[in-house]
């Protein structure tokens, strides 16, 4: 299994999955990221990231039921695992720590 290091794009995808909470699938994640970050994202890149996140155990997936949208095609629904949540929290904590460590004089 690959290392648990989380790349920048992977982190964003993981966050997007978390935002969608339970209704995250490829296209939805793409739209979410595009809206939030205002930059075009390739579907392939997102699916790759999702795949990697799943291999690392940060998300899990299951096939959704058939709906009439999307020409009756099924969705693969992703959700953040407990491990994934902890990873996100750790990242946030590290960032906060680092923000706090910036001396005020740095900005002047």
């Amino acid at each position, binding site marked *: 299994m690959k290392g648990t290091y989380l790349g920048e794009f992977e982190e964003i995808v993981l966050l997007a999955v978390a935002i969608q909470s339970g209704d995250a699938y*490829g296209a939805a994640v*793409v739209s979410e990221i595009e809206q939030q970050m205002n930059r075009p994202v390739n579907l*392939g890149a997102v699916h790759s990231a999702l795949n990697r996140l799943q291999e690392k155990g940060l998300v899990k997936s299951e096939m959704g039921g058939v709906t009439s949208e999307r020409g009756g095609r099924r969705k693969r629904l992703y959700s953040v695992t407990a491990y994934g949540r902890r990873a996100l929290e750790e990242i946030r904590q590290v960032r906060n720590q680092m923000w706090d460590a910036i001396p005020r004089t740095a900005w002047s």
Partner: protein
Amino acid sequence: MKKLITPLPPRWATRLLHWFCAPHRLDELEGDLDELFQERVKSVGLHRARRRYVRDVFSLMRPWIIDRPSTEYATSDYPTLYFLHPAMIRNYFTVAWRNLVRNKAFSAINIIGLTTGMTCCMLLLLYIRSELSFDRHHEFADDLYLVNSEAINAGGHEVYPKLSASYAQALKAEYPEVMEATRLWVNIIEDRTLLTVDERGKPANSFYETKGYQVDSTFFDVFSYTFLEGDAKTALNDPHSVVLSEELAHKLFGNTPVLNKTIRVGGTTGFGENFKITGVYKGEQARSHIDARFFVPMSVGWVAAFIREQPATYTGNNLYYTYVRLKPGTDTEKFNRKLAAFMNKYVRQSLKKAGFDKRIFLVPVKNIHLYSQLANIVTATSSAKYLYILGSIALFTLLIACINFMNLSTARSAKRATEVGVRKVLGAGKQGLVGQFLGESMLLAIISLLIASLAVSLSLPAFNQLTGKSLATSELINPLTIIAFLILTLLTGLAAGSYPAFYLSVFKPVDVIKGRFTNQSSSLGLRRGLVVFQFVVAIGLVVATIVIRQQMNFLRDQPLGFVKDQQLVVPLHGSNYSAIKQEMLKNSRIAGVAGADYYPGITNQTNFSLYRPDQSVNEIQDVKTNRVSPEFMQVMRFSLVAGRLFSRDFPGDTASRIVVNEATLRKFAIPLKKAIGQKLNFDWQGTTNVYEIVGVVKDFHFADLHQSIQPYAFHLSLGNQFNYMVAHIQTTDMSDVLPFLENRWKTLVANEPFEYSFLNEDFQKNYQSDTRTSRIVNTFTIVSILISCLGLLGLAAFAAQQRTKEIGVRKVLGASVTNVVALLTKDFIKLVLLSIAIASPIAWYAMNQWLQSFAYKIDIEWWVFAVSGLLTLGIALLTVSFQSIKAALMNPVKSLRSE
């Protein structure tokens, strides 16, 4: 109502997705794509949405999407690629090993065959690799060129690789592209140099060495040599320095360092002065068309004096190989065109005076050995043609061994069919079976490789003897070679195992287990085809062997126009000819002794440019000349056509009298009747020398029979210095003549070793490359026939075994042993006969092509094919009948009781 038009993504992109995407992934991905597309149509418009769609499809081309079976979603309980699982691969080899051990005869035949095939293949690959590596190791290999010339006169044009001494410097001065220029001189006066080692406290030791070349001090700036001792940059700066090859250094001094030691260099190269060893280079791996044993600067010896005394010329004295190193990236074509201007500036005027035209052009040094086909090059070159011949022989030998494997495996398929059936019933897939069979052939190939590697290193000395190469075992350990051999093994395993693997793996288990399986006729047909192929190759090789042998015999027995047997040749190198001659004639077995500068069989380097007095200088013709003592032509038994030979009875005979051959008369259009007394002129350094013809001898072959007879003239020398002495011995038993000669020699010429050779052997050396090809073809013919027969042996054994019951019944019903043997061998004989029919025309064509390279050659006669065919048939019959007789003699009770 307004009709709703649903916008559609580009259809081809969707199709592309369907093509590469794994089926179980398709649903979600296409859904995502579609959803995004519909969204984007609204937000950014149809056009851009479609573009984004295509981009997304391409961005999805990722291995994990393309990979069809994934462990998570595979339908079966087993991963679909289970047959490549390490455990399975281990299992294939385990099963293969058990099969090998169980069928010892079958395994032995295959391993022997494959080992032999691979050994041949590896040896020939080593040979081919060494041939291809000529002159590739130089640091500037891509920028090195030989300056070649083409002289054009009224009589035609002649390509000649040597130039006058002046070109090298002038080319370097004229063109900035020429980084360095260097000359090489091959001693034309004597081809052996006497080297003497005189170390304090040890007896002096002398050796004659060939291949000592004199070169400019820039030589090692152009050609790269790995120096073991000394410095390449300065090695040739001092005139009295000498650079030795590793082998020669070993020969002269053993395993001690030799730098700064002195050796005496004799002959016209060093005039017997002391030379300091300034370098030793690694010779073995540095394969080059300059096959040197040692190098001496051009600034000493005869050649230095000659260059000093000669007026600088661009037309005559074409004695020097001139090499240039161009600036990297120079366009050779363009440069070649520029050379015309050079000729105009420097050479045109003197060319006009000499009456011919000339152009110079560059030949890449790395092409010299195989592709340039230049005559008169430093070391005799080879031809890429031979590599093709050897390469195909290598391929064929291996192919024959692979065919044996295929044949035996398919023949035994009936036996293994049950096994295949059971495996299939137990759930083995086709891939698994293919894997197993390939595993078996791979294992065999690997075992063979190991044995073959051993065999190669053991047989390398013999192979070197056969090919005249000096390949070292160390070359086997070269990474490229190892990779090549591993690939060879892999391919052998695949080639040998592919057919049985795919053939056996498609058996239907139901048929097999019910016993409905019989050897299908298609496999029988294929097997026969393969046997025929093997024998076509074998018969072709036999024909080649016979034709080559006939041609070689023809060359050996061809009347040459002189007596070449029982002629002993002794190199003199300026030693006192008359004294030695007198001593020699004291032995009653020595019938005659004569001196000469050349004798037939070695390259004759000097020629005169002669013309009839009534002709102009422009009509000169080159005539090879040889300076001889009065007795030479009597000793050699040249046959006289007109006039007389030189004789001491005619005191008027001087250096200006010549005896010519008939070809010379033809060249100058002199009728035989008027030949005697006819004069020929030769302009040399401003004076005209006149030569008078006193005799005409019948045309004789002074060069090998690849070449037709050229004009040749002998001129007389009453002096005491010749390069060679030829003695006619009246007996074939040399056992007391040679010790006598050596003894006399030692008392007369104490400081030079006694060396000799036989003229017929020297003459034969001209066919060395032909003899070599002949020997290689001979050897590999035997090998490939042996491998073919090995296969036949296996097939015959199998056929006999399969028909044990039939034979038993026949015998019980009264069939004789002969009947049974005939029954079993009939099929094989038919195949061999068919092979003869196919092989004959192919072999005839190929051999006819080979014979075209000889000026004098045999015709291929029909009986060659008959003999080859019968020979092969005989060997095949012998092989098969061994098994057949064994089967026929078996007690029928034994074979029939089992049921």
